[in-house]
């Protein structure tokens, strides 16, 4: 028995080793390094010292924290939009059409993921540009005579972010809806509930764990995204990740960039925590 137990232990450690390596080398160590450098200042002679200056910069300069507030507000908005857009899709795929077509259509949903974010974002440039598909079409049918400015605005940025993150909302919602027994809907209707009541009192509460986990993923993806805001956003739509990028690669102030990175992590995690508390959801249930 001892030998068996030992054998189990070795297998167990072998299996957990890649996970531990991944976590420590790729996540924990870089973050510790960033955390340290966010508190480090540099004297003219190149010696480092402890300072809170980088964090003070964030709160003292309106431009920084306003950008953050703007980014967070957009991220929340896009998360809500993603829910509104994808819930009917998830419901249709799981409850309305037959299983046979559903899996094919779900596969279609995944296509944007295959080509990568950069390519999808360029795709939207082709669609939304001044000489893009939409403007050319509207001019052709005579509805407008000069192109509507859509590209490089908050609008195009929202569309792009929504498009690249939407899928991460559909999948968790679909998986909760799949386990929803149709007779629950029938029972509610039998007890006199209208379609709206069934939706708000039965379907939404039932799929809440899926909505919450989808919401967390979309919010985190959007708030931490760089490509879509950078390419599709205008000059007015400053995204907080662009600030971080600037500190690291333009001004080469790594300490400042690290502090911004940490602030992004902390504040966005807090927003999720508050949202979970407000909606009465628990993180443990969301995972299932």
């Amino acid at each position, binding site marked *: 028995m001892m030998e068996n137990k030992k054998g189990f232990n070795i297998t167990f450690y072998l299996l957990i080793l890649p996970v531990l390596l991944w976590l420590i080398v790729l996540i924990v160590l870089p973050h510790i390094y960033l955390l340290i450098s966010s508190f480090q200042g540099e004297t003219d002679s190149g010696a480092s010292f402890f300072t809170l200056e980088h964090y003070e910069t964030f709160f003292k300069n309106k431009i920084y924290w306003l950008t953050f507030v703007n980014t967070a507000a957009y991220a929340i908005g896009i998360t809500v939009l993603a829910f509104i857009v994808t819930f009917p899709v998830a419901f249709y795929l799981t409850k309305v059409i037959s299983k046979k077509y559903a899996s094919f259509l779900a596969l279609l949903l995944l296509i944007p993921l295959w080509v990568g974010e950069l390519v999808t974002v360029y795709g939207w440039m082709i669609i939304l540009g001044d000489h893009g598909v939409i403007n050319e079409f509207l001019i052709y049918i005579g509805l407008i005579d000069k192109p509507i400015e859509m590209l490089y605005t908050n609008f195009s940025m929202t569309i792009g972010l929504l498009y690249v993150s939407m899928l991460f909302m559909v999948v968790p919602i679909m998986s909760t809806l799949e386990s929803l*027994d149709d*007779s*629950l809907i*029938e*029972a*509610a*209707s*039998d*007890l*006199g*509930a*209208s379609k709206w*009541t069934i939706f708000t*009192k*039965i379907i939404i*509460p*039932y799929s*809440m764990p899926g909505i919450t986990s989808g919401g967390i993923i979309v919010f985190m993806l959007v708030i931490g995204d760089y490509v879509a805001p950078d390419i599709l956003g205008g000059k007015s739509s400053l995204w907080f990740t662009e600030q971080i990028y600037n500190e690291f690669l333009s001004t080469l102030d790594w300490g400042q960039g690290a502090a911004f990175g940490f602030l992004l992590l902390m504040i966005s995690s807090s927003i999720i925590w508050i949202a979970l508390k407000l909606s009465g959801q628990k993180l443990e249930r969301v995972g299932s």
Partner: protein
Amino acid sequence: MSKILEIKNLTKKFKDFTAVKKVSFDVDEGGFFSILGPSGCGKTTLLRMISGFIKESHGEIFIRGESMNGIPPEHRPVNIVFQSLALFPMMNVRENVAFGLKRQKLKKAEVDDRVADMLARVSLQGFEKKKVTELSGGQRQRVAIARSLVMKPSILLLDEPLGALDRKLREHMKIELKLLQKELGTTFIYITHDQSEALVMSDKVAVMNKGRFEQIDTPRNLYKNPKTAFVAGFVGESNRLELKDRDGDFITTKNGWRLEKQGLDFNPEVLYVRPEAFILAPTEDLTGINRFNVKIKTVLFDGSNTKVSAIESTSGAVILISLPQNAKFENLKEGDTVEVGINYDNLKCY
């Protein structure tokens, strides 16, 4: 007694399959009506048409004389207890039972009163705040029934609600349901494939097969006088013997067993005999019976339900015979020969 439900020529066709074929029946106010049939006979389709979840192809449904055709489920005065129970998992017991009443926009005090009263009737006081996922099978059952009954429906439809319970609990719930129905006086329409559930609880049972009603009768009549071969075979236990021919008042089985059966005016194909219809060692003065000898093959002991498998001496036909509830035949064993009698009336020919 007034009719609460009248069904006229109800038919449901799916693409290339007719699930329910021209079914007509009435249900009396306050009755316990069961629809009994094997799986796939169309009984659930019939129930879902009454509740309004599927639209009939032809025919009419009247509840208290009002036509229900085209009326959606939420506006029909019927409620349904689902096979899966369909309790709302995100709500507690109280919220589940109050769900329907809240939809009627009743005052909170009235909702509370009716919910409390209904929970008391199904002995679930003190469980209001429990989550439905924390309840036992029997308790969940009672929540589902309470949730429907609190709506005071004209008719309560039950779709095999005892199917998921274990045997002991099912026996118990059978009696409890029957008592609850008597106490409340609500009309129950109960769907089952379990003949014992149907016979024990119902005032009337309809036996359904392949989309049609074979017979609608009281449980006793159904058992005593099955009108068709299907009913004779499906309801209760029977010996089934195929028949070869008839001459006058005599019938002969395929294996050559000749029995007297008076009053036949057709050539039957099959004979059904209940195991308890056989009389062991009939006295000399009994008339109107067939007498024959059997040799005991095996004794199938099952307490009060003990039977013997026996071979009829002239034909070799194997029949099941119930042992009477007394000590007289307690010592019957393999190889014994006994004289057996069977009344003409108890030979059911089709």
